[in-house]
């Protein structure tokens, strides 16, 4: 693995720390409606499906599919690993539950739409765990 790259880190607050610090326990966490089960992202205190307010933190499996991606070549900031892969992935738990992220753990040129990936965490500054995604080993389809 290459060295941890420079990142602009998120401002962690009470409203989002379940997401940015869940990696400390190896968990990718979102808010979820305790009544109808809808996953909510970005975090909001009201369920967008039933408008209930009983919203709790819950972990997903971390399995996802690459919806789209780009290989960034432009040195917006100096980095040793151009091009690197930026992707939008959709979590298995709910259609439309997506994240922008990076696909790591394989050559950038090996990233493709439809690729199955699993969350990995990259720790920064003692308080932030960035959820990245790596190919599910040996799988191109419905690996569990």
């Amino acid at each position: 693995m290459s060295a941890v790259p420079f990142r602009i880190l998120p401002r962690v607050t009470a409203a989002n720390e379940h997401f940015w610090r869940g990696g400390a326990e190896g968990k990718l966490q979102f808010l979820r409606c305790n009544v109808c089960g809808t996953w909510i992202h970005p975090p909001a205190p009201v369920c967008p499906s039933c408008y209930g307010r009983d919203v709790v933190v819950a972990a997903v499996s971390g399995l996802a599919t690459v919806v789209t991606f780009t290989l960034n070549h432009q040195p917006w900031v100096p980095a040793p690993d151009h091009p690197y892969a930026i992707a939008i992935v959709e979590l298995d738990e709910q259609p439309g539950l997506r994240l922008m992220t990076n696909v790591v753990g394989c050559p950038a040129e090996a990233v493709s739409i439809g690729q199955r990936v699993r969350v990995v965490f990259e720790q920064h500054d003692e308080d932030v765990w960035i959820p990245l995604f790596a190919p599910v080993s040996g799988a191109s389809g419905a690996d569990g």
Partner: protein
Amino acid sequence: MSEVLERRAALTGIGQSEIGRRLGRDPLGLTLDACLAAIEDAGLAPRDIDGLATYPGAMGGAPGFTGAGISEVHDALRLELDWYTGGIELPGQLGSVIDACAAVATGLARHVLCFRSVWEGTAQGKDGRAGIGVGAGGAGGSGFRAAGPTMEWTLPFRAYSAANWIAMMAQRHFHEYGTTREQLAWIALNGRRNAADNPRAIYREPMTLGDYLGARMISTPFCLYDCDVPCDGATAMIVSRLDRARDLRRPPLRVEAVGSALRGRPSWDQFDDLTTMALRDAAKMMWERTDLRPADVDVAELYDGFSFIALAWLEALGFCGKGEGGPFIEGGARIARDGEIPLNTNGGQLSGGRLHGYGFLHEACVQLWGEGGARQVPGAPRVAVAAAGGGPLGGCLLLARD
């Protein structure tokens, strides 16, 4: 359909400052050059202006992204305003003009001065285009943390630019519809072809498909020529109440319909259809408000901050079917000035300069007034569409000359 109130509005004057890659000029000066030119073009005086609108207004953020806010222009021209607005949470850059149409239609103002000014060329300096939050005076550096509904979910993933975000929309379109770089190139090549006949454009030398395919990659599938060129310049226009426009200097350009809808989620990554982006909703709304059809449009000035956005606008507005934009533009004949739907007749932002949205509406007016000179679309165009924005931002206006 209930009464389409924006038809009480008309474009009556346009103005532009000098435009350059790096002018090194005071951005308020550029802004006022454009504003005063537009006022004079309409046959008005500053004392006649009772409304003021801009995008994005005074704000921090990316270097050179805004040259002046509402209060600076208001005060410099000592305007006496009944109505004003400036902000960034709008349906794209032209959302501010749509607001102005609403203001004159509801009687809050008679003549609204609308402006947009940028000085990104000078502000970003010789290092070229800056990412968001990094470099060239951005907020990057130790201790800076990303926050807010867009930046929190993009910057930590090294997605520093809308180039990255829109590139992913294009990649998805390539995947779903088989669109190719050789097809997408024609947005850039068509723009350059038109810029050759626009003395105010930034890049005017000929460009070939080979040049395009050989250019360095920025963020796949976008190469350098898929990305617009940061510049310095200001654009302004006057939106007047139609019943106050008939006796002005120019024939008024009626606002036939506007599109400001955002029916999907307001997000770069959560929007339901990444291949259409919010342009789908704005375009649909616009056509819901008029009996005119895409075939009635004589000229289209469609945002090309990144090439793919113009392709997506062509599809959203119905000039071709969904997913058919690649074959539609391939070869460039249909979008040429003598083609089916002349596109970005001044070179767009790719070759004309990143005037950020307002340049498209300015050029639509130029074409409808028949003042395009060497780049004038033949046949005295009567109907034009101007559209701006990409991702979750989109707004469009359909203009008609009687």
